[in-house]
């Protein structure tokens, strides 16, 4: 059923205004980190690529970048402990394992993840990355909205 748009309803505006300030600041920090890595050493800040190449070929800069992510997150949690939450039940060891296997396989085969294709690829206006983001977003929405419920993962 179609209803006329209600101009007094601020649902969408409310949703957008409800985005936490930290959300935007954090997002900008992620973008700035990717820009810094590219301007400084010409590398794409794709976490899956740096992680797996680091495992295979080493490279101190790769391990410093990855270590920086861990320490930076810890620092953020130390400064703003109230932001350090996990607001969903533990899905259990089998779902975590299946999820990890799929993410590992998929990011290797697909050549990137949320950072490489998402933040950097979209920023570079790469067509492949736009396609990648649309595919992994759609698949993620499918699993989280349907598959996860069918599998009985606690929500």
């Amino acid at each position, binding site marked *: 059923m179609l209803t006329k748009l209600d101009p007094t309803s601020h649902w969408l505006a409310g949703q957008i205004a409800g985005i936490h300030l930290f959300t935007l600041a954090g*997002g900008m920090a992620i973008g700035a980190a990717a820009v810094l890595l590219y*301007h400084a050493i010409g590398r794409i800040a794709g976490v899956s690529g740096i992680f797996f190449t680091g495992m295979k070929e080493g490279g101190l800069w790769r391990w410093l970048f990855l270590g920086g992510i861990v320490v930076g997150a810890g620092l953020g949690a130390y400064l703003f402990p109230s932001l350090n939450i996990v607001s969903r039940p533990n899905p259990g060891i089998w779902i975590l394992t299946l999820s990890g296997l*799929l*993410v590992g396989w998929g990011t290797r085969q697909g050549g990137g993840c949320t950072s490489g294709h998402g933040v950097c690829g979209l920023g570079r206006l790469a067509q492949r990355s736009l396609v990648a983001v649309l595919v992994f977003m759609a698949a993620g929405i499918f699993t989280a909205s349907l598959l996860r419920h069918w599998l009985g993962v606690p929500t």
Partner: protein
Amino acid sequence: MKTNLSALAAGLLFGMGLMLSGMSNPGEVLSFLDWSGVWSPDLIGVLGSAVLVSLIGFQLARRKNKPWFEAEFPVLPMKSIDRPLLFGNLLFGLGWGLAGYCPGPALAGLALGNNEVLVFLVAMLAGGFLQQWWARQRNNL
């Protein structure tokens, strides 16, 4: 030296951003991906603001001949939109929506007292190596 320090600085900023933005909370990620209940748009804010900054930064970089601390920009392979891209990202998305972790936030979780990421990261490593083994087998046929 400068290369390593820049990578460390970028990593610190990246990890801090993941934490502050809520990306490192898999519940936040799932509340964006799960459209069956109350939907949260926060992740659009994270990705949107990150892409906005990177868009400006990468466009500015086009005017540069070389990075600050390296001799040249590595040439990025120009690949077309192929089946591995589609299939790989499909599998990645399916895994992402199951537990709410992609690689960056899972690493960040190591510092957040969040032990479930250990299981996820070991499986992620296994999945990546399995894929590379499979790809090698396929190429040798």
